[in-house]
């Protein structure tokens, strides 16, 4: 944007272009690589960088989310929580990871060894694939896919395969029942999760994640889309909680019924991979929720409060994104440590009798709003 125009409207309402962007850095690196190496090598090097970044993010996310969950649960349960390893116990999850790394990874005698060992890897790969289209900051994305939202909902349903695989191959009745429950649950809840994602796609008119974010430059969809968007948001949160097998929908691993459900027989690092995949999945669905409903990395603006909006613009976009995502993660954790678990038939009733009809009706309403241009 030319400098003059920025000065001509000093407190532009929706001047997102002024925000600090990572584009410059990525472009510089790309240009430098292109000058130094041949195009093939550039591609390979960039892939390696992306891979390392994803794995690094993965590890950090796992550690952060586990310590966060433990602290949240502790405070809600009037406990202190981990407070021994590192400052205020912040390194506790690192110690736990080390413990899991050096533990023996048992494979039970009667198990299908190939599938048993493959399942946690699939869980991890699915979680990694889901990272690709997420916009972590302004113009910072691994893969700008034009059907990003569809990609996410398609790939995330592969998660159920790893759970079914783990449950089946463990040769354990608890695992099998957990896996079967999980299969029924994820397949059902994908419907309402998909429908509530569709409401935003209808409003934004695009499946591309940056497009959806830019369409929220003048306000997040949860505010712009009237009550239907709010309903869609609530349904989305409930559905993704179920899809990631978190309490109160943790029937796949309901420990008072099935000891540990589909991962009863897993130990050591194989268990850790499932654990990690669960937390990364939570992060991803919350990131999608933040992107669709809460404007992704888009800062918070209020009508004509020019000064306030200006200050908001100076907060880096990645902080906006992670702030919103972690808020949603906190809400999901809050659910987990407050509510009892549902029963399998109640779980399916909730989906098929309440969430699905409501979200279908809601989608019709949103379509009407979008066609009649009633949204802001």
């Amino acid at each position, binding site marked *: 944007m030319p400098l003059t125009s920025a000065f001509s409207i000093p407190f532009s309402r929706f001047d997102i272009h002024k925000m600090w962007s990572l584009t410059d850095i990525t472009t510089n690196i790309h240009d430098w690589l292109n000058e130094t190496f041949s195009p093939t090598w550039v591609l390979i090097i960039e892939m390696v960088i992306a891979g390392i970044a994803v794995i690094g993010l993965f590890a950090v996310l796992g550690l952060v989310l586990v310590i966060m969950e433990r602290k*949240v649960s502790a*405070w*809600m*349960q*009037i*406990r*202190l929580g981990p*407070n021994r390893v590192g400052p205020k116990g912040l390194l506790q999850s690192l110690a736990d990871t080390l413990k899991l790394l050096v533990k023996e990874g048992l494979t039970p005698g009667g198990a299908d060894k190939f599938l048993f060992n493959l399942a946690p890897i699939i869980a991890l790969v699915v979680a990694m694939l889901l990272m690709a289209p997420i916009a972590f900051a302004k113009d910072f994305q691994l893969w700008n896919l034009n059907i990003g939202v569809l990609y996410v909902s398609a790939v995330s349903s592969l998660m159920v395969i790893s759970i079914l695989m783990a449950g089946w191959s463990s040769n354990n009745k608890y695992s099998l029942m957990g896996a079967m429950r999980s299969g029924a649950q994820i397949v059902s809840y994908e419907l309402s999760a998909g429908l509530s994602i569709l409401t935003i796609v209808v409003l934004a008119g695009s499946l591309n994640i940056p497009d959806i974010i830019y369409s929220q430059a003048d306000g997040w969809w949860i505010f712009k889309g009237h009550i239907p968007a709010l309903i869609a948001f609530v349904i989305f949160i409930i559905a993704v909680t179920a899809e990631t097998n978190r309490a109160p929908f943790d029937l796949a691993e309901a420990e008072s019924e099935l000891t540990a459900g589909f991962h009863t027989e897993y130990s050591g690092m194989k268990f850790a991979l499932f654990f990690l995949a669960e937390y990364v999945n939570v992060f991803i669905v919350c990131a999608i929720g933040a992107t669709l409903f809460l404007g992704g990395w888009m800062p918070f603006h209020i009508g004509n409060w020019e000064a306030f909006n200006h200050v908001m613009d100076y907060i880096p976009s990645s902080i906006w994104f992670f702030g919103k995502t972690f808020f949603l993660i906190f809400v999901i954790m*809050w*659910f987990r*440590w*407050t*509510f009892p678990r549902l029963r399998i038939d109640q779980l399916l009733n909730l989906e098929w009798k*309440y969430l699905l009809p*409501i979200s279908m009706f809601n989608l019709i309403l949103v379509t009407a709003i979008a066609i009649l241009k009633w949204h802001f």
Partner: protein
Amino acid sequence: MFIVKYIKDVFSGIKSLLVGMRRTGYYFTHHKEIITEQYPDNRDTLKLPERFKGEVVMPHDANNEHRCTGCTACELACPNGTIKVVTKFDITPDGKKKKAIDKLVYHLELCTMCNLCIVACPSDAIVMAQTFEHSVFDRAELTKILNNPGSRIMDGVE
């Protein structure tokens, strides 16, 4: 009306969930309600009530004297065979033989802290101590001899 009931159900359900979330949210933000006791760290300030039944001990005074006459009331009162009184005969200064304890063997590993021996003791020779960290590496260490070596009975205790 079906639809009205349906919507009412949904809203009352959501309300009951929000009430629960408000309660956990309150504790999430109010850290002064935390009740955790950091046990090994608070050893110095940890004070057990004086009646706490931790272990049977035999108090000795400064002259290494105890009050046990060796009457075996505690041994008889014990339901588990925890206490074993081994007696010997002392020669008193005036040349008489007098029964006294040689050893009062106490098996902490068998003790259930039922307090029956303390109640049974006619001369208040044994009391309950407020110790509770009894773990040792060798089980034999739990078999204790309550009277100090070289101790003798207090004057005036019959």
